[in-house]
């Protein structure tokens, strides 16, 4: 077994286990913690794909900014009684897990039956593509218009969030 395979297997097991635990925990804060673990293991997987920039902003944006926002809202909501946020899942709903497992098995069989992998090996340019320099060049040349529109999207989302979270609508 090569080192990459060992690393991939470890990160994949951590990612899948933390995702499963996130879905099944009843306490939302525990779920959020497992989701952070999942994000960090995904950042490791991005590193095995030689995408350093994406791995760093995965940690910064997802595990940092978004999850802090989620935890903040969870703690804002259940200040008085924590029992209100515990939910009772009816037993019949667990059939969804069976259906999901069946779907995963199908996916694995389909990918296995396809025989040879879609792309046999990692591109030799993969290491240069993942750098900040390369992505920055692409963002500021070919993708300049979408990039600027993203800033407008973030501005409108900021205004929308402030308006929605205000005490009273004007």
């Amino acid at each position, binding site marked *: 077994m090569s080192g990459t395979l060992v690393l991939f297997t470890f990160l994949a097991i951590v990612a899948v286990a933390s995702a499963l635990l996130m879905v099944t925990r009843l306490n939302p804060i525990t779920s959020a913690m497992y989701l952070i673990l999942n994000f960090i293991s995904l950042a490791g997987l991005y590193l095995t794909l030689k995408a350093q920039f994406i791995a760093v902003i995965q940690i910064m944006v997802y595990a940092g900014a978004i999850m802090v926002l989620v935890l903040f809202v969870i703690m804002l909501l259940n200040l008085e009684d924590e029992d209100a946020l515990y939910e009772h899942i009816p037993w019949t*709903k667990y059939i969804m897990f069976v259906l999901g497992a069946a779907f995963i098995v199908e996916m694995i069989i389909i990918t296995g039956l396809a025989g040879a992998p879609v*792309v046999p090996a990692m591109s030799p340019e993969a290491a240069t593509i993942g750098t900040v320099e390369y992505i920055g060049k692409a963002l500021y040349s070919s993708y300049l218009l979408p990039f600027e529109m*993203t800033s407008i999207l973030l501005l409108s989302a900021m205004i929308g969030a402030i308006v929605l979270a205000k005490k009273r609508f004007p």
Partner: protein
Amino acid sequence: MLSINYYLILSAVLFTIGVVGVLTRRNAILIFMCIELMLNSVNLTLVAFSAYLGNVEGQVLVFFVMAVAAAEAAVGLAIVLALFRNHVTVNLDEINILKW
């Protein structure tokens, strides 16, 4: 060297877990986190194809997906806050004001 199928299967597994979470859980914040999980699994597919095909466009798209996810997080959590202020619950089964 790993083949790309490993990453595709892992991504499919994570996406399915996210879908199952959205279908089973009734806590609005939990469903929100499951949607984030699904977005992340798609990001993994994009980065894998980007690395294996030697094409930067996948990673640029991941960048945009992350920006959209951040915007969605801000607006979605503001909606959850407004809902909680009006109904004092985040259980989606009890929020049925749009139901006829």
